[in-house]
Each structure stands twice: as C-alpha cells, then as structure tokens.
C-alpha cells in the first residue's frame, strides 16, 4: 500500500543455484518488506528449468483478477527467450519450492506486482538463459558465445547446426556458477513484453474449475460460520451453548495483527459456529443470540456525530508536537510553501472555498472472506487463504500455534477480488483459532452481511479547500485540509510530522502552479476500523483536489481543460491531460444535451486523466454515457490487461461515487448486502475508451514504472462531479451522489 519507489537499478542481491538431478533452479529476490529488511528472507521466488523442458516460476504474490501472473510470465519469457505459453507460474511460491526458505512471499498491494518485479524478473531470466547457454557451450566445446543463437528454448550452435534444448542442458547448467549479470533482450526485439497476450487463467474461469478460497475442500472438513458482535467494540459476555446438530461454538479473539480501531487485542468480538455444512451452520449462527457487552463509546460512532467532529476539525485541531502523544485531532503539515498561502488568499481578487465529504466505504469483494485450516497440534498447520499478504498470514499462524515456520504451510488461493480487504488477516486469525479449538480441518466463512458490516473501511473524510485567484487568474494561494481517521494510526504507527502517508497521498506534490500552498492532514477520532481500499488516499484526495480545481476554473471563467493546461508544466502530465481531452471530443457539442467533466491525477507513479460524459440526471441515478481515459504508467507489459484494469477501475469508481458507503448508528453498520449497496449492472455500462501512453524509446531502469491495478479509480469521481456541474450548474461535493440507492433482484 505504501507507494514504493525502489524498483530500477537494484541488482539481484542474492542468487542461489541448487543442483538437482533434473534441472536448473534459480532462486532470486523480489522486493518484499520487513522480513527482508531483517535479513530473514534472502530468496523469495524460484525459477526452475526442468530436464523435461518445463519452465516453472514459483512466486508468492497473489492473483486477484489483475492478471499479473500472466504478465509476469510475459516478462520472463522475453529474456528466457521462450514462448510465453511455456512458462508455468505456481502461486504460493516459496513454500512449494523444495528447499526454499518458507514465508518469504510478496505483498500484493499498491499496484506493485508488475512494476516492482519487472527488472528483477528480466535479470533472473537472462542469467538463467546464459547459464543454460554456457552449459551448451561446454558440451559443444566451442566457447565463442557469438556462435550460438537461442530461439524458444532451443540453443543452436550455428557453425554445425547442433541444437540443445533447455531441458538437454538443464542438469549440467545446475552445476555451473551463474554469471552475475546477463544482457537483456533489446526493446526493439521484444516478442512478448508489450503485446496483448491472452491471460492463462481465463479458461478455468469460464468452466467453474478455478479454485478460490471458498472452494477449498478437505477430507473430514467441517464448516464454521462467523458471527460478530453487531456493535464495533462489543465483547462476548458469555459463551453460548452449542446448538443441536452443531459441533461447537468457538469464541474468537482479536489478535495483534488484526487489532484495528476500537477492537483492541484480546477482545472476544465474535463467535464461530461449527457444523456439518455451510447452510445448517449458518442457520444455527443466525438463531444464536449471544450476550454482548457494549462499550459506552459506541454512541459516538454515529454518522451525524462523526460528521460534526470532522466539521469542527476542518478549522480546529491541535498542532503536531514532535515527540508528543499527538492524539486524534492533531493537525499535521504535509507541505507548506515559504510564501504564506493564507496571506496570499487574503489578498486575492477572487476566493473560492469548498468542503467535500466522503463516506466510509466497504470493499464488497464478490468472494466473501473465508479461510480453511488443517491443524494437527505440535505437528503442522496448513492454511488455505485468499490473501494478499501471505507473509503476514505466516507470521500470524506461527504466532497463534507456536509452530515453527517449517511446520506451517500457507497456500494462497485465487482471490475472488481483493481490493485491499484481503490484505488484512482478521479472518485468517479466526479460522486458525477455530481449527485449534476443534482440531479438525475447518473452513470458516463470513456470510455476506458479516463481510459487508465488519469491514475495515476506506476512511470517511472531510476536506476543506480554499484558494485565491489574482486579477490575471493566477492561483496565488491554495490551502487544503483533509480530516480523516488514520489507517496507519489505528495500527499503532508513529505518524511523524506529515501525518498518515496513506491518508494524504493524492493531496501532496500537486503539479499545478500555485504561488503559495499549504496541505494539512488532521486525524479524526472515530474508531471505526479503517483500511486499504483500492487506491487508498488517492481516491479521497483526487476527488477533492480535482473538484476544487474545477471550481477555480469556473471562478476564473475558463474552460476546465484549458484552465488545467495553463497551470501545468510537466510534459507527461500535459500529454495525458491533452490525450484524454482530445479523445473525448472535448469542446465539441455533446449529443442529446449531455455534458463532460475532466480530472487528472497521479497514484503509484502513474498519471491518469479521465473525461466523463453524462447524458442525463434523474433523482436516483446519472446516465453515464462515455468515459475517456488516458493513462501513462511509463511501461506496459500487456495492453489488454492495462485496458481491463482501467475499465474495471472506472466501474469501481462509478459504484463508489454514485452509490457507495456504509452508515453507522451507535457503532452498528446499517448496510448489509448488495440490495443496500448498489452496484452498476450490465445495462448501465458506459462506453469506456482507454488511451495508453507509453515511454519514448527504450525502457530506462532509472524511471519508476507506474502501477495500473488501482489507477482507474481516483480520477473517476471528480470527473463525474465536474460533468454534473457542467450539465446542471450545481456542485456535488458530498459522496455518494445517491446515498440511499438500493438494488433489486431483477
């Protein structure tokens, strides 16, 4: 979730070749987190070339729909010089590769899988290729590299025409010392990177054979269904007796890795009913009436109260004190120009002020949270989880069971959507606790109402922005304050002078020419658990920033596109902005009396602009006709995948902007299922056009590669709100547009 800027020139820090009878295995390091920093996990991905010509890559990142496994295969195919279809990716990586250090897996967050692994995968593939070629040269007895060519895994000795498949020389290669580096395929000769290859997982996703977490079945498995206290912060008062026909009722405790918001470590906030199948167990859980002890503070967890707190902090709060306790209500300075922006606004000809609000937003992954555990005391614990964070799962399981890592196996299943929610491990902690209690293989499921209410939401936010224009319509001052509960603060992170990096992303380092500016972040006291929702802070701040820019354009009497263009100077931003405007037909009349709105932003090193064209507005919805997106991630591995992710992000952004949000009354969430959390359906889909802007010339390791998975989201809401203004003359500053929207069965 933290934007990482570390990809690029970093060399492979450690390589190991493991000799084996059948082939060559190369272990290499992919970027990871704390365990790597501690020197614990030196190798976390494995490339194996088998004597049977098979090529397998075991990797610890997760496939949750973004298609990165296919993309990673495309990357490796290039420098291995084999057809993309020959590389097999194995999920769960390290724990599946013999002799690999367990638990060294990668987090699948921050739109990072492709951009953080691109160069390392290429280096590893090139080194493996040259080691295989070296083995062939030894066998041929001709040490002149220029006498050999490689094509689709076949090494040809050109003077004689003798050929060696990778499989022929894999065993011999495994006994060689690999080169420390190897030349990469030049961009001009790419046969794989940059092409719209088909995804490998799609056949299994049209015939029902793809296995998600909820599909895991073990022999003698029993079923557990979770039932939380309906009120955040509530605790179980007494353990209910086991209902007839059920196996057990297991209280579950909040453990350190899942401590969030009001739910403190050790709090027994749920019970799991264990029974013979999902349905009977779920019905028993529904009938169960546990006694809960509710915290007095829950009364503050009510929408109106939380909004009033945010409004007070829009101008109030206490300044950050270095080394101080800095409780909620602290004002952090993210950025401040030397010139005083407040004074500059005071002297401006025109002053614009606006307040924007965004709700708590649930994730609503199609696949509800679930986890399957097979635990044998003192012997082993095996976990199947649709997780974005296999590493955290491993740490959790070793902590709960007391088993060493060598006796714990984590299987990362396919994810039926992750969206940031499956980066948390609360559901895994519960499943492990249940398995330890019943000592049988058990699958734990959260029914949809539990999944929708017991979320770790995108934080609510209130943004107050002020800006001034002088007589020549220059932006002489800009002040921006985001009041929001802190994701990292709730996790015990010391925020430092700038506040929560997850909270202010999208509000800092703005590309516009402001003569003076001040960006502040203020922690809101609400203890509703908050977490990472696709694009995190960028989805909050890009809405407020780009709506405010639009308000300034209107105050200046300028076209919203031209207003932005005049105040941008970075050529990449300008190119993206202009591409979106041009492709959308900006400036030309909209058929049928509709209107367009524009927005631009950056997240995860990628710049994205959107133009939303709306046709009409009713009391219950907005007819969105067309969305034009221009996106510059610098480097593209698969344009089909980029397009899919951006289009999907547009839909996700529309769901959130039009209808998304949770409500709270005395700590109890109000919306429990899709009927109350409306989503776009097929017949409401606008036409989405995606223009991908790539690099000029060959890829440069020193330029950060941008992410894609989350990039369709942040600019959608402001472009939609700006289109609404263009059509109606009214600003919509509060999301969602239609807070009470419902959805029927159809």
């Amino acid at each position: 979730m933290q934007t990482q800027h570390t990809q690029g020139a970093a060399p492979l820090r450690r390589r190991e070749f493991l000799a084996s009878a059948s082939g060559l295995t190369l272990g290499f390091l992919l970027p990871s987190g704390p365990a790597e920093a501690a020197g614990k996990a030196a190798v976390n991905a494995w490339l194996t070339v088998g004597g049977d010509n098979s090529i397998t890559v075991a990797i610890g990142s997760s496939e949750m729909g973004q298609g990165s496994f296919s993309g990673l295969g495309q990357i490796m195919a290039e420098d291995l010089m084999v057809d993309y279809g020959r590389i097999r990716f194995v999920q769960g990586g390290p724990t599946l590769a013999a002799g690999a250090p367990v638990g060294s897996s990668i987090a699948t967050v921050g739109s990072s899988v492709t951009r953080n692994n691109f160069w390392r995968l290429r280096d590893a593939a090139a080194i493996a290729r040259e080691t295989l070629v070296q083995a062939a040269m030894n066998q041929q007895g001709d040490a002149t590299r220029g006498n050999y060519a490689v094509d689709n895994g076949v090494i040809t000795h050109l003077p004689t025409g003798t050929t060696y498949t990778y499989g022929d020389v894999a065993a011999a290669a495994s006994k060689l010392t690999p080169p420390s580096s190897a030349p990469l395929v030049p961009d001009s000769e790419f046969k794989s990177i940059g092409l719209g290859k088909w995804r490998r997982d799609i056949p299994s996703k049209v015939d029902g054979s793809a296995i998600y977490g909820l599909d895991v079945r073990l022999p003698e498995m029993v079923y557990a269904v979770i039932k939380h206290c309906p009120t955040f912060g509530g605790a179980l008062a007494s353990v209910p007796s086991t209902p007839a026909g059920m196996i057990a009722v297991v209280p579950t405790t909040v453990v350190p890795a899942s401590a969030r918001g009001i739910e403190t470590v050790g709090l027994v906030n749920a019970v799991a009913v264990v029974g013979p199948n999902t349905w009977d167990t779920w019905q028993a859980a529904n009938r169960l009436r546990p006694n809960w002890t509710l915290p007095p503070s829950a009364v503050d967890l009510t929408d109106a109260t939380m909004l009033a707190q945010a409004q007070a902090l829009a101008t109030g709060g206490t300044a950050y004190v270095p080394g101080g306790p800095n409780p909620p209500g602290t004002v952090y300075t993210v950025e401040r120009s030397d010139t005083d922006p407040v004074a500059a606004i005071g002297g401006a000809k025109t002053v614009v002020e606006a307040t924007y609000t965004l709700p708590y937003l649930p994730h609503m992954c199609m696949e509800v949270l679930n986890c399957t555990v097979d635990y044998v005391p003192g012997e082993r614990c095996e976990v199947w989880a649709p997780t974005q964070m296999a590493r955290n799962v491993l740490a959790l399981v070793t902590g709960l069971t007391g088993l060493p890592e060598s006796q714990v196996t984590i299987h990362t299943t396919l994810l039926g959507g992750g969206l940031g929610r499956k980066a948390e491990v609360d559901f895994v902690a519960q499943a492990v606790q249940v398995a330890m209690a019943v000592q049988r293989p058990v699958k734990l499921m959260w029914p949809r109402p539990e999944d929708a209410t017991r979320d770790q939401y995108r934080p609510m936010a209130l943004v107050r922005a002020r800006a001034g224009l002088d007589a020549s319509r220059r932006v002489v001052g800009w002040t921006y304050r985001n009041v929001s509960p802190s994701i990292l603060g709730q996790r015990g992170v010391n925020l430092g002078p700038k506040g929560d990096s997850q909270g202010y992303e999208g509000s800092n380092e703005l590309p516009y020419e402001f003569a003076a500016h001040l960006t502040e972040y203020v922690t809101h006291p609400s203890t509703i658990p908050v977490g990472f929702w696709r694009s995190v802070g960028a989805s909050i701040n890009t809405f407020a920033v780009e709506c405010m820019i639009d308000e300034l354009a209107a105050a200046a009497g300028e076209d919203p596109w031209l207003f932005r263009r005049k105040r941008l100077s970075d050529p990449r931003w300008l190119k993206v902005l202009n591409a979106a405007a041009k492709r959308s037909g900006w400036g030309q009349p909209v058929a049928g009396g509709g209107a367009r709105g524009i927005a631009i932003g950056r997240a995860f090193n990628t710049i994205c602009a959107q133009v939303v064209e709306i046709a009409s507005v009713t009391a219950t919805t907005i007819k969105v006709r067309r969305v034009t997106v221009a996106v510059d991630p610098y480097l593209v591995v698969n344009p089909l995948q980029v397009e899919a992710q951006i289009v999907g992000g547009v839909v996700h952004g529309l769901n959130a902007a039009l209808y998304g949000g949770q409500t709270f009354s005395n700590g109890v969430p109000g919306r429990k299922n899709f009927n109350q959390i409306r989503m776009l359906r097929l017949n409401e889909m606008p036409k989405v056009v995606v223009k991908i802007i790539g690099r000029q010339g060959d890829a440069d390791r020193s330029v950060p590669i941008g992410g894609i998975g989350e990039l369709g989201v942040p600019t959608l809401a402001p472009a939609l709100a700006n289109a609404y203004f263009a059509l109606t003359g009214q600003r919509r500053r509060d999301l969602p547009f239609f807070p009470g929207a419902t959805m029927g069965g159809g």
Partner: protein
Amino acid sequence: MPTLTLNVNDQQHTVTVSDGSMPLLWVLRDLIGLTGTKYGCGIEVCWACTVWVNGQPEKSCVFDVSSAVGKRVTTIEGLSADRSDPVQQAWIKHQVPQCGYCQSGMVMAVAGARRAGHHGQEIAAEVKNVCVCGTYQRIHDAIGEL
C-alpha cells in the same frame, strides 16, 4: 433427515439434508462438491449462484433443494464438457474474466438467455449479474456475437 435424489449435469446424486429447504447452492457446493457455482449475496440480488433447473436460469441461493427433485439441474461444470458452449468461447475470445468469481453465474445466465432464443442487447438487458471487477464492457463485446 430427508434423502433426496438429484439429477445434476446428467448424473444422479443422492444427498441427505437436514431439511428440504436447504438452498440448492449449498447442496451443490458442500454435499455434491461442485464448487463452480458461487455464493455472493444469498438474497438473489447478485446472481453469482445462477444455475439452470430444467433449462431455466435460477438463483440457487434461494432455490429449495426439494424443488429440484425430479428436474434436471445444470451447473457451470455441466454447460459443456470442453468449454465449447458459444458463451464460453466468446468469453475466452474477448478475455472477459478478471477475478472470475462472478463469471460462472454470468456465463450460465447469458447462456440461458441465449438458449431461450435471445440475442445481443436483449441478453444484456435481462442479465442482472453483478461483477465488482467491472468486466461489463467485454461482456457487451462477447454478447454482441451471440
């Protein structure tokens, strides 16, 4: 504990349930082991659980198993033996799925509409399956061929 015999994908399955009101979805997934049919909402809103009963698309999350006795149940696993159904072929050609979780139900709903003689935008208007990944544009492209 009633014991029922079901015809699922042209195979007979005998299952013992605590009550005939158990939804077909959970009988398929937990008792028979056909996990291609997915749970999404449990209240027939998202349509992820769509199967056919006597060729008619039904939301299996609210379809009592006792009502399926004596009828032909078709799940995604039984739509074709080799992904040869035109809907499956169109889904592959247009690279529709992302996470893929909703697509079993989506394919069954679209294939049901197609076998009922509907085409193109007729199908798009009647299929209400929710896809949180937002694959609708490619679904429109794929349906355009049907």
